[in-house]
């Protein structure tokens, strides 16, 4: 097995068949999936049919596309026509969407072979994939540890070699943090760069779909396929997808790189993580970048603002799960009791906690002090970052304050779990892009990720810097 670009090249040239590529990955799944539980569903039959379709296209002399025959895992909060889509929640029991998410259409059109639907924290609410109604996913590097979350299944699938590519969604760090903990590349694109149509909403103003891959190049390849305007998403940015792969190796000479103080030198950060950020910075400097430290004071308030805005939107987005039209229904004497009985049985503890938080933050008399104040902080953080980007081309920081922690370590303490996102939430609030790149390993061989941040639509530069860090890490 090898990287996605290599597989696509081989399949397009006829050097390998998509079916062979798929079978190798299915075999890897057979071997280790029982221990890892990356998937809610492995779509072996559908994937075989798709792979055969790709091979037939090649045989006809057609080009199946830039992801020809590349197995790809989808986070199970993206709609797949006719196939169970669960959000790892009991509330969606039995629901099969009548349509495909835009990203699903795009990866299929590019020749990718959807191999399965991956596990997540219920409705993408969590940082360890332990909040799944179907049981946790385990970190392929150490089965006693979490893969991070909420896209833990997708990160683990790539790390375990189940699929060279995966899609996740990032609302407060849900792609980048598990990427860091599993030692893979994870990207949260600029808000609006990738269509959200068919992504089951957690917090609409923060959610963004992005790629997981083993390498920066593969992540760039996948992002080129899924990005670009979609008329079905009103928040989608007009214009075509950015060109990323072509400029990857242009180097970082002369780029101004800032190390964000508030996202690196913080309480509770493990020294090994901080050292990795510093080492990555040194690597960039050696490659010709100008590196300095920078302060974004308001970033400190990111977590507080995030944990008001995200639950507020979630409380409204999740109101539709009421037992009336689809999914779970728990019968009761009248409609409103049926609604509450269904929601009581269908949602897990963390989802309920956030619905309560969000409902409270929006309620009459509290709106201004909570939701309103959080929105003002959000504006402040955006201004701070915009100001910083006048002096820097990109920023770097830690992705996660710690390496992968043990299962159960934080489940009893929601606040400790929320603090996993301290370095990742600021860019969800600003809408800017950011990605996590593996940078060596720390204690017990656990992976460490370094985060690269860029201004809106700054993906081309961000990827170049990520590539340079990847090289500095010796990969």
């Amino acid at each position, binding site marked *: 097995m090898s990287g996605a670009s290599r597989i696509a090249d081989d399949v397009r040239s006829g050097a390998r068949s998509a079916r062979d590529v798929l079978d190798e990955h299915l075999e890897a799944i057979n071997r280790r999936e029982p221990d890892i539980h990356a998937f809610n569903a492995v779509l072996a039959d559908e994937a075989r049919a798709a792979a055969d379709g790709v091979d037939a296209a090649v045989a006809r002399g057609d080009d199946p596309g830039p992801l020809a025959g590349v197995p790809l895992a989808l986070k199970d909060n*993206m*709609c797949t026509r006719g196939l169970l*889509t669960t*959000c790892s929640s009991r509330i*969606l029991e039995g*629901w099969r*969407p*009548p*349509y495909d*998410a835009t990203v699903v259409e795009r990866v299929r059109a590019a020749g990718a072979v959807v191999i399965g639907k991956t596990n997540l924290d219920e409705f993408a609410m969590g940082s360890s994939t332990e909040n799944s109604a179907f049981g946790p996913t385990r970190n392929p590097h150490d089965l006693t540890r979490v893969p991070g979350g909420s896209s833990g299944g997708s990160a683990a699938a790539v790390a375990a070699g189940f699929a060279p590519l995966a899609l996740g969604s990032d609302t407060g760090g849900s792609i980048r943090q598990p990427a860091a903990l599993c030692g893979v590349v994870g990207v949260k694109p600029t808000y609006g760069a990738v269509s*959200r*149509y*068919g*992504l*089951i*909403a957690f*917090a*609409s*103003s923060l959610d963004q779909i992005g790629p997981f891959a083993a390498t920066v190049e593969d992540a760039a390849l996948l992002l080129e396929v899924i990005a670009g305007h979609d*008329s*079905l*998403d*009103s*928040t989608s940015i007009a214009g075509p997808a950015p060109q990323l792969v072509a400029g990857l190796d242009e180097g970082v000479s002369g780029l101004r790189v800032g190390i964000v103080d508030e996202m690196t030198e913080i309480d509770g950060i493990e020294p090994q993580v901080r050292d990795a950020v510093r080492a990555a910075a040194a690597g960039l400097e050696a490659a010709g970048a100008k590196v300095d430290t920078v302060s974004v004071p308001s970033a400190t308030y990111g977590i507080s603002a995030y944990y008001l805005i995200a639950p*507020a*939107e979630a*409380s*409204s987005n999740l*109101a*539709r799960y*009421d037992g*009336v*039209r*689809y999914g779970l229904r728990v019968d009761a004497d*009248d*409609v*409103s009791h049926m*609604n509450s009985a269904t929601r009581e049985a269908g949602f897990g503890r963390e989802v309920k906690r956030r619905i309560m938080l969000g*409902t409270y933050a*929006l*309620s*009459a008399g509290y*709106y201004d002090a909570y*939701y309103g104040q959080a929105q003002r902080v959000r504006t402040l953080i955006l201004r701070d970052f915009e100001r910083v980007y006048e002096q820097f081309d990109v920023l770097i920081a830690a992705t996660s304050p710690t390496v992968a922690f043990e299962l159960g370590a934080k489940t009893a303490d929601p606040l400790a779990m929320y603090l996993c996102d301290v370095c990742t939430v600021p860019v969800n609030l600003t809408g800017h892009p950011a990605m996590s790149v593996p940078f060596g390993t720390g204690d017990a061989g656990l992976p460490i990720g370094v985060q690269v941040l860029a201004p809106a639509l700054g993906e081309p530069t961000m990827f170049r810097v990520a590539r340079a860090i990847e090289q500095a890490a010796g990969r």
Partner: protein
Amino acid sequence: MTAYETVIGLEVHCELATASKMFCGCPNEFGDEPNTNVCAVCLGLPGSLPVLNAMAVEYALRVADALNLRVPERSVFSRKNYFYPDMPKNYQTSQYDEPITIDGWLEIDGVRVGITRAHLEEDTGKSQHVGVGGRIHDAEFSLVDYNRAGVPLLEIVSEPDIRSAEQAKRYVEELRATLLAVGVSDVKMEEGSLRIDANVSVRTPGSPEFGTRAEIKNLNSLRSLLRAIEYESDRQWSLTQAGEKVVQETRHWDEESGRTISGRSKEEAHDYRYFPEPDLVPVEPTQEMRERVRASMPELPAAQRARYIEQWGIGAEDARVLVDVPGLAAYAERAVAALPGDSGGSAKDVVNWVRQEVLAYINETGLSPAVLAPEMLAELVALVAAGTISRQQAKDVLAESLRDEKWPRTIVEERGIAQVSDEGAIADVIDRVLAANPNVAEEYRAGDEAAKKKKWGFLMGQVMRELKGRGNAQVINRILEQRVAGE
């Protein structure tokens, strides 16, 4: 003068007649099989997202021009959160603190009623409760039809400027005529295209304070609106007089019992937890869009009425009826245009016929004026003006003409009822009658008032008999005058 003053503000929900729904491409059609005009978006399926229908915005801008509303540079959609089975997402996408239009007015009989705002929102589905009574509480089960879910609505909120039930009715009539004229809605109250909530309070005349208001829902016709406001204001005043307090609450109009019934009180009302809709971007109508709308605006009812009054010399009430009845003004305009210039008939004559006979026919048959041929009415008016038939005869002719789509002249010929108006022929007959009754003219001239009247009647009768009842009475009168009274 009543002992109290009623203060009324109206919230009118108008379904916009766009081809597709507010946030998806589903057809916006009334009366189709349940749950056929639905998709992932209007069913609120997980993962679906709304895309704003540009026509709904354009329609709102048309209404803004018609109702003198201001259009802020940007407006924002918000979510109104509450649980109800006919609402697929359990929130309604509406507008809250930044509506698309604000601060307008509509003039009713010389009085300006302020309009606070008109904002866009999506309609809900429709529940049908099956079982005893048809109400949710005693239903065995309920069915929901989501065809209406996502249909664009414009909610037009008036200031509390209305002072009587009659004025409220006039406001709705004028609003309806205006919405119809600008082509944004079919304004059919019976199909729910126009739905009204009335905020009603009472106070001592001249008091600067407003009383506590009740919001009356379920007003499905102008008649319910009138009756409900009258009932509710009387109820509130009686309470006040008895020293009791009016409770701020929602009340439902019950057509059968003719009463308003308490709903949930506002104190325990839903907290709607409005917040900006993150799935939509702010609406910022461009200058070009606004100008295009302005250029395409038709004549508004008020201007149309003023034009008829001035050009045709008709009364205000006539003008109002012409404009209020769909299609009637266009019919009248075409009939006036078809009137031959030398016929002696006037636009005013045409309007009289339209308002009485034609309107009666329309009301009776339910037909639209658009299916009638206005040229036929023009011919009829010309026949009357020429004296070919009397007004009385013309009524029968018109009835037949409308019913059988037959030209009035053909009917007159078939029936052989054309009047004799020829002066020479009539003069000959008069001369023969006078010759046969040589004393009568003398007796007429010599007689007192009573005798004069009697003799005149006798002569008229003789002349008419000779003419087999088809003589033009006006012509006979005039010539008889010359022969008998004159010289």
